């Protein structure tokens, strides 16, 4: 009996370290708004992105501002760098991406996926 309790105690304690590491890691990751301000801009007009090819630094967290100059809502989305944000007609949104490894990434307007695409290059 006593041994059972002992081993139960040990097996519970095994979890304490990894769990507390995870919690600490998460808490330190939740910090206030954007530390650095590497900002880039995109605009959307007549369902075309300008610039259609945007270059950002690799391995850096970047702020991206997108202006929608059209009269219809758009959804800025990328499968490659995982963002998804609705931009109201005539509106402007900002979002944070990365750090991304060097390479070529695609983005598009989810509401006009076939015609409205752009490329993001990280290097």
């Amino acid at each position: 009996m006593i041994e059972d309790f002992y081993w139960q105690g040990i097996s519970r304690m095994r979890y304490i370290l990894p769990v507390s590491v995870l919690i600490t890691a998460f808490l330190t990751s939740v910090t206030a708004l954007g530390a650095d301000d590497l900002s880039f801009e995109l605009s959307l007009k007549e369902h075309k992105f300008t610039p259609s090819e945007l270059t950002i630094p690799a391995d850096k967290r970047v702020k991206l501002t997108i202006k929608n100059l059209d009269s219809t809502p758009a959804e800025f989305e990328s499968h490659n760098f995982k963002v998804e944000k609705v931009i109201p007609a005539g509106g402007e949104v900002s979002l944070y991406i990365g750090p991304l490894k060097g390479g070529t990434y695609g983005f598009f307007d989810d509401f006009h996926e076939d015609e409205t695409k752009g490329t993001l290059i990280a290097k």
Partner: protein
Amino acid sequence: MLATLLIVFREVIEAGLIVGIVLAATKGVPRRGLWVSYGVIGGVAGACLVAAFAGEIAPLFEGSGQELFNASILLLAVAMLTWHNVWMASHGRAIAQEMRQVGVAVATGQRPLAALSVVCGVAVLREGSEVVLFLYGIAASGGTSATGMMVGGAVGVLAGAGLSALMYLGLLTIPARHLFSVTSSLITLLAAGLAAQAVAFLQQAGYVEALTFTVWDSSWLLSDSSVVGRLVHTLIGYTDRPTAAQIVVYLLTIATIVGLMRFQRSRPLAISAKRSSAEIASEHGVGIRPPRSARATVTN
């Protein structure tokens, strides 16, 4: 028309799978249909409101209103699913037992049903508001005829609902004894996936700033933009390029839910779960007809 069909189908499946799991998880609970309907109707109404006021919501919180809104409703759903699972950990056995007894009404509390109603509502709200915005965008840009859009939308809804129904019926073929452990596991993974999605929104809005690097890229194996990938994404939160923060939160959510369920189960059976069928029946009116599931199980 095809574009409308595809996007409506996609969003309906995503919401439909969640509703299907909730329905399977509450098999045998009286009045669950009503609560789930409340959730779905509330979600549709909410989706229309969100779409109508998208322009007003976005500029709130310095432009990160969308992300905060999405993250909040996702975390609300996570909390509700956790509650359901923990509640089922102590009452599931009792319910499964009642379902096997002859002519006994299954009586359970209504509170977890309200929670699941919220989960269904949230799922429909999220996917629904995207559909409304998308359709509005197409209609406003004059890309397709109104008839084409209506037909595409209707076919999309039917196909999505059909696939969700198949999934639900598939779950129901699991014997009652195992059904709750299967749905509990599904709901745990579903909740972990939703929590990881919430993290993605917080990262995008700049509220989570560390651990935002991508840990792996499995898009060559299963892209989360493919049909199968999206299903797996909805069900267990699969992402082909997860960030470290997402993985941490995913695992933490599973650990929390499993831990709470174990704790709940290790406690002596709650009085409510131990009450005799007679007591329950007298409280809820003796004449209650047992749910079909209970009657069906008896014949096995």
